[in-house]
């Protein structure tokens, strides 16, 4: 790892095709800054991207990367990290990718507490498929597939994470560049599963959860007396449906990452030219 890596080194030479003004630009910049600030470089970084406008991030960033199938980015990241613990693994995707089609994986990834970061670009809409309701869309949010709104409560991703044993739960806003980068950096530095839900507005299909809305309604926890190590306080804030927070909602200081609890610390990529030396013992077990 070289110390002179700049965030721009994580940018590919492919120009993003996101709509001008899309929140994903800011979200991505913050991710790149956080990676550079934590001493990573593109050759030791593995980014796994889901499918969606958000998922295109794998193409626009420069690193080892896999742009997978819709909703399955977290298991891919899990496999990468277990096979080579020396890699910095960052998983990114949309709210549909992570909380709808991939919601099962989300809960189990939180439980596993693998030492990687998960950045969800939450625009409360399906962007790529041109504006259908997402699991975080408001109850009355009208779309082509929900003409009267979904008429069901939105998923609360922070609550899901907390109830599944999350050890690092944060939320950021794409346009607050510095705070966002800082929070992603904290997620990377966290010993375990660092989860950041990023408000990343879709300027094309969501006229409700806009930059202005978040600017007006966001409370930064750094400006409150919130103690992120206090589970009950975190729970109260997370369950408050009317509040929108930026900051670290909860961090378990005693987090034991998967590789420690399961003793998975070896790089699995190197193997001998033939069977392992004592492999004949395996045959003897069957006598």
């Amino acid at each position: 790892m070289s110390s002179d890596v700049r965030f721009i080194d994580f940018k590919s030479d492919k120009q993003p095709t996101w709509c001008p003004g899309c929140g994903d630009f800011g979200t991505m910049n913050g991710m790149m800054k956080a990676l550079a600030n934590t001493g990573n470089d593109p050759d030791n970084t593995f980014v796994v991207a889901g499918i969606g406008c958000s998922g295109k991030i794998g193409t626009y960033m420069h690193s080892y990367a896999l742009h997978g199938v819709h909703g399955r980015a977290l298991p891919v990241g899990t496999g990468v990290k277990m096979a080579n613990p020396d890699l910095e693994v960052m998983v990114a995707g949309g709210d549909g990718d992570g909380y709808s089609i991939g919601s099962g994986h989300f809960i189990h990834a939180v439980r596993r507490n693998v030492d990687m970061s998960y950045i969800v670009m939450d625009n409360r809409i399906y962007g790529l498929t041109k504006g259908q309701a997402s699991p975080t869309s408001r109850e009355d949010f009208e779309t082509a597939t929900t003409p009267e709104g979904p008429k069901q409560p939105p998923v609360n991703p922070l609550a899901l994470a907390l109830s599944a044993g999350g050890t690092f739960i944060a939320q950021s806003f794409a346009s607050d560049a510095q705070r966002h980068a800082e929070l992603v950096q904290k997620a990377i530095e966290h010993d375990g599963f660092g989860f950041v839900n990023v408000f990343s507005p879709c300027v094309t299909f969501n006229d409700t959860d806009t930059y202005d809305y978040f600017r007006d309604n966001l409370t930064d926890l750094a400006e409150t007396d919130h103690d992120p190590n206090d589970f009950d306080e975190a729970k109260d804030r997370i369950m408050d449906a009317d509040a929108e927070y930026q900051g670290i909602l909860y961090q378990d200081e005693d987090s034991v990452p998967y590789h420690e609890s399961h003793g998975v610390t070896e790089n699995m990529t190197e193997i001998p030219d033939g069977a392992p030396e004592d492999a004949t013992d395996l045959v003897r077990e069957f006598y």
Partner: protein
Amino acid sequence: MPADFNWAIGGEAGDGINSTGKIFARALSRAGRHVFTSKDFASRIRGGYTAYKVRTAIDPVESTVDRLDVLIALTQRTVDENIDELHEGSVIIYDGERTSMQDLEIPDGMVGMDVPLKSLAEDAGGAIMRNIVALGAACEVTDFPIEHLGSSLEKRFSDKGESIVENNKTAADLGAEFVRESYEAETTEFEYELETTDENYVLINGDEAIGMGAIAAGCRFYSGYPITPATDVMEYLTGRLERYGGHVVQAEDELSAINMALGAARAGARSMTATSGPGIDLMAETFGLVAQSETPLVICDVMRSGPSTGMPTKQEQGDLNMTLFGGHGEIPRFVIAPTTIAECFWKTVEAFNYAEKYQTPVYLVSDLEMAVTEQTFPPEAFDMDEVDIDRGKIVDEDEVDEWLDDEGHFRAHAATEDGVSPRALPGTTDGAHMSTGLEHNELGRRTEDTEIRVEQVHKRERKVETAKEREDWSPREFGNPDADNLVVSWGSNEGTISEAMDLMGEDAPDFRFLSVPYLFPRPDLSEAFEQAEQVVVVECNATGQFADVLEHDTLERVDRVNKYNGVGFKADELAAEITEVLQ
């Protein structure tokens, strides 16, 4: 006296049938006898019944037959279920003190031995050992030296402590003693005597052989979701893979299992997942991603009867089409089906090599009967010195330079002459690149350029052409090579067909038998078909999926022998059917 001896224990699920059967099988194997076991869940009446059958001989045995010489019946139903397989002189060991067994009527010509299994077990230290008492009784009936049973009991119970082992041995002795005293005449008259040899055999099932093959081949990461009959692969690897620096993860579902395995493979580990039909269905979308991103991955399908939940504990070779053609779009994949339990080991090793050499998913297709059958092999059948690892075109830091484009980007999908691109594992300096399920250019970046699309399609297809040229895809050959008739099969039927061939005798039609483990790429059988007057394709499914494929390949019509009632082929039955088709 036939050269083989057939034994079974049957009772209700929960009676410890499997573990008792395995203890007896291991005793025989440790005594230098060959063994082929089968688990019989095939009820003629209703669910809940289970039996474990052991066929044993001095020479190798490769299939089961419908004959029972000694039956340990824990329930009345066990006798009813097996009545057709018992014959004059067969011994039935049962516990007449059991309420349900008091009215047992031993069929004419058969020998009933009423042994107080439970009471004797209690004398030895606990009723739980009643099956072991029965094993002791069976040893006495067959003149089988009881110390081999003792040795098998040691293996089974040594981790539970010395006293448990000793109690079990006592239980076995009490069973033997009881028979010696109460049924001396019957025992002397019994025609089978289980001789021993000095050989020491490996007793292993197909799932274990796949697991052992994976470790031998350098597999380090396994993720799976439990499903019959593939779970034993995961259970075998759990704990063992860790000894070699690897890890087993029980995923939340098969979607996760294959995606984790894919992640580990992209990171550079040899990686595998195993499942059965329903899991293969769930994995289909990611299978396409694995192939499109050119990731080396072994996906094992231990087939069971489908469709949907089908008959989950029954035999079928129904997934050939799914593995050959499954998934939307068109993409090459390799499909390999081991033909014996020992071959499960070797084909797993091959699968890992092909996966990395050709950067492609490899379906390793086995089936329920191989998964649940324990069979003996000489230890040389798993000679670890014969295992070769070929990781294909992995490039290191120095070699990466040769594969950079003018702007310094690594060409992870370079359209090379042989179709295989260089592979830079994450962490390699200057090798950073992305991979994707989207159509992509040489750099792995999305494109819809018509020319690049065609180039990449051809590049991926070229890997198959290269593999066809470089590797040996020959079928395994048996019988008379010059015979007019040709019998072809795939997967686990090899042993049964070979044995059917022996049973058919002199007067039966002569045939050449090709057992095909390579389903894609597969051998070109056109010449063999042309030479043959008649071709019969034997497979355990209703429609003849392999027969269809071969007709398509060779433009010749074949005859078909199919079985799809949930029970695999038996040698005697197959001998009759093949004879009929060929006459």
